[in-house]
């Protein structure tokens, strides 16, 4: 566990160093570049692209989280239970849509740039969060819910103080999955001219410069692993707190 933490700290330090001072790493990436080709991406600032990449993923995930958790709450209430079977099927069908198709089909509606990417990431983010929120809210321990009813809590109080906190770790696992998918999918957004790290990779593919492909890919992969681990740690923390808070 300790060794794992050290590796993560080093990975993070290397990532920050590379984004701030990419030319320090020129000798390494020069290994992948053809003779004479630039080894470090020179058509834009890597740090800016990384921040834009994170920004798109963050915005899409927050929107997806609000909508997905809201929908999951809606279909698990008595008044919305009519929509439960349909919402399950829609989630299943939605997952079969390939990201490239969603991106490309969003272009005629909203034009090129960040917008189609945001839409694709939002739709992709919705599914895992919704599925997990649904699981979390429908598999609550019965005694706890009964007890909260017995205590005379209103349904809103039950939702806020019992159901959502108990479902939180499962919901967070969905958010983690959605962020990981989003980080990778945002790179594809550059095929429709979104400013993300995909730009670096595509520039490399177009000019046959492997150094660009490797650095773009590495930055996204390291980001994804670090964020994944961070969210897993957060999830464990919340789960532990929930465990302690439980009377049993």
């Amino acid at each position, binding site marked *: 566990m300790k060794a794992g933490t050290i590796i993560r700290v080093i990975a993070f330090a290397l990532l920050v160093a590379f984004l701030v001072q990419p030319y320090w790493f020129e000798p390494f990436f020069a290994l*992948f570049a053809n003779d004479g080709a630039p080894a470090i991406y020179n058509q834009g600032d890597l740090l800016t692209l990384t921040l834009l990449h994170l920004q798109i993923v963050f915005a899409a995930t927050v929107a997806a989280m609000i909508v997905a958790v809201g929908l999951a709450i809606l279909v*698990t209430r*008595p008044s*919305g*239970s*009519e*929509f*439960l*079977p*349909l919402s*399950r*099927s*829609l989630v*299943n*069908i939605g*997952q*079969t*849509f*390939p*990201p*490239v*198709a969603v991106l*490309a*089909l969003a*272009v*005629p*509606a909203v034009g090129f740039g960040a917008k189609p990417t945001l839409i694709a990431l939002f739709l992709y983010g919705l599914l895992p969060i919704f599925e997990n929120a649904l699981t979390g*809210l*429908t598999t*609550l321990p*019965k005694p706890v*819910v009964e007890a909260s009813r017995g205590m005379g809590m209103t349904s809103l109080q039950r939702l806020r103080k019992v*159901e959502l906190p108990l479902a939180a770790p499962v919901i967070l696992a969905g958010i983690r999955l959605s962020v*990981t998918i989003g*980080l*990778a999918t945002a*790179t*594809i957004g550059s*095929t*429709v001219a979104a400013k993300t*790290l*995909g730009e670096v*990779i*595509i520039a*490399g*593919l177009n000019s046959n410069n*492997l150094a660009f*492909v*490797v650095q*773009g*890919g*590495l930055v*996204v*992969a390291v980001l*994804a*692993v670090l964020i*994944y681990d961070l969210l897993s740690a957060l999830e464990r923390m919340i789960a532990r707190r929930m465990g302690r808070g439980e009377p049993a």
Partner: protein
Amino acid sequence: MADTVADGAPQRRLSWPLQFDKLGVVIAVLTGFALVAPFATMRANRIVAGEAMGVVASLPVWAAAMLLASVLATTIIAILRTPTALRFPAGIATLAVLAILIGVAGEHLTPDDNNYARVSPAYGFWLLLFAFALLTTDAMARLKLGPLARIGMLGLTALAVGLLLVSGQWDSLSIMKEYSSRAETFSSELIRHLLLAFGSLAAAVLVGLPLGIAAHRIARVRAPVLNVLNIIQTIPSIALFGILIAPLAWIAANVPGAAAIGIRGIGAAPAFVALFLYSLLPVVANTVVGLAGVPRQANDAARGMGMTDRQRLAKVEFPLAFPVILTGIRIVLVQNIGMATIAALIGGGGLGVFVFQGIGQTAMDLVLLGALPTVAMAFAAAVVLDAIIEMTERRGRTS
């Protein structure tokens, strides 16, 4: 009182004579929007901006009347609390009417002897399609069709779409014009797409199953294997496709015979390897989970019967773990069909060729020509495999 948390639906009260269906209200709102929105777009040629036309302007009088009548009737059926046995056929019938009439709109709007004019469905059409697909999906979910019935429904749908394609009903639509000018490329790219998706799946199963069995039996192997495969998943697909160009180019140049069997730095080979690498994690992880879920008693009984390790694997562990392994295969297949579109970026072919060409030329019907078959194939793969998984689970429970 209430026995489960989610199942607190109130008893239907009959204080109000007409009960509205909530989904029906949603469908009615969607339909309302759709009917005032443009139904089809007509353009002078394939890339200029088009003129949007409403339902009445897009269709001959008889067709517009037919469309409005069926849409209205089905919306009323949806909005009232009608039995599922009525909602399902009504939804299907309206979808069929929409599918046929969009072709009629194409013919109606295309001037005679004009090969440049393009007619495409506009968002009113897509909205109507979505609304009645919702109704049909909801009805199907409520009917709780068995696995064979679901595959049957899929087959019938494919047959209907095939008939519409063959009959030429859609030939006047822009997407079919894009098709007809590249019919040969289309079929070769389609085959390439399927080869990439299914071939990499087959390779992943051949390698992933033994790897998963090894990871299950040898605890020391498990964590490293799963960790490496997890990290591969975090590499964005376009980067992995690109990174593989270098080692494959090296192999092609330095391993005798490699180039002869089609291994090259650019093209299908790196795409195939990338899809294969992405496919390994779900196959290996699900094999491990499936084998770990085999009840201890079953294994003990098999040992007590004097089965060898190999017999136990073949006759006890594997059959019991099979549904879980199949779930991994379903994930991989659906994912590969979608991801194979990215192969086009590195010259690997597949339906992504049309998608990226279309994006480049801002010709959206060309994008659709690549995207719609991809979505349809991924969807069909999900339906078929879900049904198979359900059948194997049932067999596992009854035997």
